[in-house]
């Protein structure tokens, strides 16, 4: 597995040296991730300009999400086991504008590396006090903030002795439907990074780094939780921004 990943990366480094552009996105065709082999398109994506519907996103608000849904540690009667963490940052568009009032959804394994999902057969304990699902609506400055438990790494069947680095799944909406994305946030310094074909399907190190949160002592709270900061940049908005948002509603 390590050799397969290294070969892909070496080919990319060689192409870069020969003048190929920097790759900032995830490759859909990345054979070390076995499930991708039959599930990636083989034809190039067709470039087209978005039409009006694609230049807007669905609207979400406090009718959709209760503020307490951003705290994954208070969804049951007791405290979940594990390392309490705060994960916070901003959702920005490609020009650095905050994405305000939009839905952020997260889901994750518990501290033992187990998901509450019937297909997760990893014999690690479920935590009766942890579901691992959170939602919030971004603030006016694009800020999201979740309180949760640091997820554990877990084994999967991609290859022998395969383990996913600890991660939190993030689902994001922008101002345009073209910006809609789902990704995974990782924790800094994870020893499993080099061995993980999903993380390594991003062949450029700078691009991979964009999925790794930073430990932030200013987010860490005294005698309560450690803090991580991670900003998310969506693709550019295709809307014209001559007038403030509120004018078109």
């Amino acid at each position, binding site marked *: 597995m390590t050799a397969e990943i290294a070969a892909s990366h070496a080919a990319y480094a060689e192409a870069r040296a020969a003048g190929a552009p920097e790759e900032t996105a995830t490759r859909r065709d990345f054979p070390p991730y076995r499930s*991708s082999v039959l*599930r990636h398109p*083989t034809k190039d994506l067709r470039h*087209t300009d978005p*039409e009006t519907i694609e230049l807007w996103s669905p609207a979400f608000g406090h009718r*959709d999400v209760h503020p307490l849904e951003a705290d994954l540690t208070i969804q049951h009667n007791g405290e979940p086991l594990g390392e309490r963490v705060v994960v916070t940052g901003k959702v920005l568009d490609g020009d*650095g504008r905050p994405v305000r009032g939009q839905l952020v959804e997260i889901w994750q394994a518990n501290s033992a590396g187990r998901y509450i999902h019937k297909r*997760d057969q990893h014999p690690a304990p479920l935590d009766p006090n942890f579901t691992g699902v959170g*939602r919030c609506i971004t603030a006016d400055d694009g800020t999201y903030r979740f309180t949760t438990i640091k997820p554990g790494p877990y084994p999967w069947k991609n290859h022998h002795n395969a383990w996913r680095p600890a991660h939190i799944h993030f689902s994001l909406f922008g101002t345009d439907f073209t910006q809609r994305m789902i990704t995974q946030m990782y924790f800094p310094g994870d020893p499993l990074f080099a061995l993980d074909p999903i993380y390594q399907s991003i062949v450029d190190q700078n691009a991979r780094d964009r999925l790794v949160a930073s430990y932030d002592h200013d987010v860490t709270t005294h005698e309560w939780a450690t803090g991580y900061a991670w900003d998310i940049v969506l693709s550019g908005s295709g*809307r014209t921004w001559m007038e403030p948002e509120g004018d078109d509603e």
Partner: protein
Amino acid sequence: MSALTPTPGQTVGPFYGYALPFPGDSVLSVQGAQGTIRLHGTVRDGAETPVQDAILELWQADENGDIVRETGSLKRDGHTFTGWGRAATDDDGHYTFSTRVPGPTEDGAPAFFAVLVFARGLLDKLHTRAYLPDDQTALAADPLLSSLPEDRRRTMIAEREPDGSLRFDVRLQGEGETVFLDFGRADRSAARR
């Protein structure tokens, strides 16, 4: 050019099932209500095997082609049309939305549903469109559709079934591979309503 580099996407993975679906997620318009139609189909991989762990999103205009600005998709009240929904595939790789027929958002353009596909094994999202099959003139005049060879063009047009349902199958790879879209950096001068 964008000032900031976008954060890369990653696969939705296999374990979104207790997180992304929600009650009423695929019901944009309740069955039996006037104007409600079914949009459904099967997602298949390169071996024609149904994909049991895909999740699709639908985003559309209302019947008049107007953009909907209503909140409440996650807690549907059974009356408000929000224009957005989500449907996971079942064990047969099949998904179903209960919704309304969108109107075109551009004058003279054919109407379509914006469709987004996520799946285990799919490392990043895929955008496509499910065009309504009815307005042949508008379909024929559409620059995107006209630029495609017939066998590819067909993959973006939903099929009308005898009971009025719309069928839109998604093929991730192989023969009949769905046309997936890249919007790149949209033209900043793009017209808006």
